[in-house]
């Protein structure tokens, strides 16, 4: 058996395009490597300016000396994406006060750049969903414990993702809180800063589509995958189970239209229309 397999393996024909594919990937990598120092230099200058401004104008500046330097600021954002393609990074967390750092390490220690990520905000309840690619390891309980001890965070949990190179972290905010993410490099990290925003007055109900409640497990991941690409999230219910939600709508009729379209596209989905206040968690049964 062992002798004949390699011969057959060698029968797999090699396409002519293979060399070009590698050359194109190399050109893309070269472009990416050239771009990084420019971005960092530009951001460095901006970050230095910010620090000087804070030092000059804020009585809090004295406290800043106790905050460890956590790498070069790459970008600051509320909703968006960033990072670079990685494989096999581990995820950790550290926090103090109203800040929480999501840190990334590789085999040799700290990674230089954050893995590819997106951060999106959702309501009902008010939460941010951080999706990470190219990560494989995490002490999930420790990450969640760190986050839930952070001021402004009501709950934190990992969604069930059926891809062991990706993770999705759900951070539920206390009512009236908002957040900002600072992406850092060398070492890689994402710093969440949670702040009370008294200007938030949105109290209109939010409509969305949802599944039945289910315990955390593979079924949850499968249910979420079914609606992949449809603004799908996983939400922990007040009772501690989970639902998959699709979309956010301003009215019941808008939600009904979306549900009809989804049923027409995917067959009978079993989803129902639900509504909650922006800070309200869903219940197992509507």
């Amino acid at each position, binding site marked *: *058996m*062992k002798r004949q*397999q*390699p011969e*057959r*393996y*060698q*029968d*797999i*024909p*090699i*396409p002519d*395009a*293979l*060399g070009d*594919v*590698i050359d*194109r*990937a*190399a050109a*893309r*990598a*070269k472009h*990416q*490597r050239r771009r990084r120092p420019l971005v960092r230099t530009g951001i460095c200058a901006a970050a230095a300016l910010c620090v000087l401004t804070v030092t000059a104008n804020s009585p809090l500046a004295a406290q800043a000396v106790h905050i460890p330097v956590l790498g070069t600021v790459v970008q600051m954002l509320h909703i968006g994406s960033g990072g*670079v*393609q*990685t*494989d*096999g990074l581990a995820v950790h967390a550290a926090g103090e006060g109203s800040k929480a750092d999501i840190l990334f390490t*590789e*085999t*040799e220690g700290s990674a*230089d750049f954050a893995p590819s990520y997106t951060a999106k905000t959702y309501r009902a309840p008010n939460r941010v969903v951080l999706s990470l690619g190219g990560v494989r390891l995490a002490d999930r309980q420790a990450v969640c414990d760190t986050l839930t001890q952070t001021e402004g965070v009501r709950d934190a949990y990992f969604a069930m993702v*059926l*891809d*062991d*190179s990706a993770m999705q972290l759900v951070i539920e905010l206390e009512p009236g809180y908002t957040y900002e993410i600072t992406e850092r490099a*060398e070492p890689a990290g994402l710093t969440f800063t949670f702040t009370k925003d008294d200007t938030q007055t949105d109290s209109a109900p939010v409509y969305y589509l949802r599944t039945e409640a289910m315990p955390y497990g593979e079924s949850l991941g499968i249910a979420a995958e079914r609606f992949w690409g449809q603004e799908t999230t996983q939400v922990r219910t007040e009772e501690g189970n989970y639902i998959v939600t699709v979309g956010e709508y301003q009215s019941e009729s808008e939600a009904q239209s979306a549900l009809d379209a989804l049923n027409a596209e995917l067959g009978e989905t079993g989803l129902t229309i639900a509504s909650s206040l922006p800070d309200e968690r869903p219940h197992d049964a509507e």
Partner: protein
Amino acid sequence: MHTSVIDFDTCGQLIHASQDRLYRLAYCYVKNEHDALDIVGEATYKALVSLHTLQRADRFDAWMTSLVIHTALDWLRKNRRLVPTEHEVLDIIPAHEPDLTPEEQMDLYHLLDSLPTEERTYLILHYFEERSFPEMAEILSMPEAKLKSRFYRILHRLRAHLKEESL
């Protein structure tokens, strides 16, 4: 930033030198030319932008092989609904030969699809790439004893599966 043990151009040359092998490895997972090319391209990109993570030049082969495997596994997870059915796979490979003994009937090309994606790696590396256990342990970053234990458990299961089918 970490310095790299090999430079960018050398890495590119090494990938070109082993491109056929990397392509065949990717092909064993996805079973079609287009996706196998995508995987090799993506693994090449990953290698070149994360070159600083390579600790020793003599680990390049294992490191690059591991990148292709992980990229292929990621592809399979993200494209589960698009994976070809058993009847569509590897039509370049000669069909099953009925006169072979049960042991010989253990045609790995066909059996690969009956395995969970992660487990295919053990058989591809050992039987197709003819990797030794120490080499496989290095590529898969696991102790050799653990690797052997998993490898033989997979074989045992495949043999049981074949016996069931031949009854």
